[in-house]
């Protein structure tokens, strides 16, 4: 009898044990199946066009700047001007960016911007992800020339409070373009080429964007080629070029054209406990020889219309330390040089040093304290009404910037 009871107990235990294993296996299978179903649902949702793929991000920047400007003319007493400003075009910006994607092939990007004085548009374009390594875009977009304008200009990315002088051009334009990135063994390379309306030559020899109503039948080609030679992508070296006609149709500048070249470098790497971030760009801009009209007596004059601009920047952040406050502190330095043509009405040799202390409230929110000192020697022509002299400014910025 005892033996029978024992056998019965063992049989019941075996049944329960087997049932539990089966149930556990069933639960695991159900769970895996549910995970798979969820993943498939997500894949299907990614492909669907619709309002769910619309999102708004953007950036907001505001701050304070205290400036002391001293102008030393060749003759006469220095002139000093002091200002304290809570916000102006360089210290205030609110730019919501609207992104909308149509499945995984089309992306619409639109960024209006309010800078305290007017509402403008930073970019408005459509991209088509045609194939691996090939994105075709059209509309109004930042030209692929160097790295500053396209990647580093946003306030929550820029390490110092002000923008580097001399990097506005070629800026943003209307047109079409292609871009992409490819592996190259353990390296990478990328290209970004565009065809746009181009720039416009002003009566004083300066260049500006032509706008949506093109000023001539010429088109401008701009391109950047980059190589990331290290497998961890820490180093990027780029070269850019721009060629195009810049004359208004029918104007006396009928054969005017510009050629621009740039070289850029980016190196970001952690040497524990410090994150080192180095950026640099050199621009060379030229307009072929033209005759301009003097604003003083309407006579013709000419000058070598060539400008160069450069910046070098380094920032250090102790990301590897345990102290929560210290690891969010970043020290930054930037040097800028900008030389515009002598014997024009706008020629000068300009340099600027900035040193900044940043505190990162989050990965996309920063409080910046920047001290900047600029030095500009005017070499504009006195015969054209220029006023030779030296201008020095000292700026202290306190700026808050965030991406939202």
């Amino acid at each position, binding site marked *: 009898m005892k033996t029978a009871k024992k056998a019965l107990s063992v049989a019941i235990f075996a049944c329960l044990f087997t049932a539990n294993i089966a149930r556990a296996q069933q639960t695991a299978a159900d769970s895996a199946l549910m995970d798979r179903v969820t993943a498939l649902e*997500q894949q299907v*949702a*990614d492909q669907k066009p619709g309002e*769910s*793929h619309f*999102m708004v*991000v953007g950036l907001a920047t505001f701050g304070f700047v205290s400036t002391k400007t001293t102008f030393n003319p060749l003759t006469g007493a220095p002139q000093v001007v002091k200002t304290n400003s809570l916000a102006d075009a360089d210290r205030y910006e609110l730019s919501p960016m609207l*992104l*909308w*994607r149509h499945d*995984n092939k089309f*992306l619409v*990007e639109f960024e209006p911007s309010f800078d305290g004085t007017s509402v403008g548009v930073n970019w408005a374009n459509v*991209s088509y*992800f045609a194939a*691996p*390594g090939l*994105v075709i*875009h059209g509309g109004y977009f930042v030209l692929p020339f160097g790295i500053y304008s*396209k*990647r*580093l200009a946003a306030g*929550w*990315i820029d390490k110092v409070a002000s923008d580097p002088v001399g990097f506005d051009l070629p800026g943003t334009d209307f047109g079409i373009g292609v*871009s*992409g*990135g*490819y*592996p*190259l*063994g*353990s*390296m*990478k390379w*990328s*290209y*970004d080429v565009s065809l746009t309306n181009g720039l416009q030559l002003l009566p004083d020899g300066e260049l500006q964007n032509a706008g949506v109503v093109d000023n001539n039948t010429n088109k401008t080609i701009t391109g950047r080629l*980059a190589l990331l030679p290290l*497998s*961890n*992508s*820490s180093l*990027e070296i780029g070269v850019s070029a721009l060629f195009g006609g810049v004359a208004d149709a029918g104007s006396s500048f009928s054969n005017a054209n510009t050629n621009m070249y740039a070289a850029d470098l*980016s190196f*970001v790497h952690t040497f524990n406990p410090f*994150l080192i*971030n180095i950026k640099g760009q050199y621009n060379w801009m030229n307009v072929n020889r033209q005759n301009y009209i003097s604003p003083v007596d309407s006579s013709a004059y000419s000058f070598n219309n060539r400008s160069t601009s450069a910046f070098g920047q380094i920032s250090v952040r102790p990301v590897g330390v345990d102290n929560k406050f210290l690891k969010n502190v970043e020290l930054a330095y930037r040097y800028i040089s900008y030389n515009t043509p002598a014997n024009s009405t706008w020629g000068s040799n300009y340099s600027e040093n900035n040193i900044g202390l940043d505190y*990162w409230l*989050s*990965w*996309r929110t920063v409080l910046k304290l920047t001290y900047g000192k600029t030095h500009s020697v005017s070499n504009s022509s006195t015969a054209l009404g220029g006023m030779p002299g030296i201008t020095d400014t000292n700026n202290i910025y306190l700026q808050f910037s965030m991406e939202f």
Partner: protein
Amino acid sequence: MNMKTTRIKKTTWVAVASLGILIAVVLNGCMESKMVAAKSGAQLWAENCQRCHNTPSPASFSHDQWVTVGMHMQTRAQLTDKERQKIVAFLSQ
């Protein structure tokens, strides 16, 4: 005349062979190395985002939004397609 023809032929052959080798090297180079292919989304996120800005928190956006942001960042930083896909998959977890 014959010598010249021979010289041209040799030059042509050398040029064609050189071009062939160059194309082969480039095509081979466009294949990612095993080390690069084995990189996880987390590693690519850490390496690529900080080229321009701080590495983003995965909690910042939903999966659907990360897909959109990934496309936006590809147009900005010319990420490769595989990099974008792996980074978005990591950030969406």
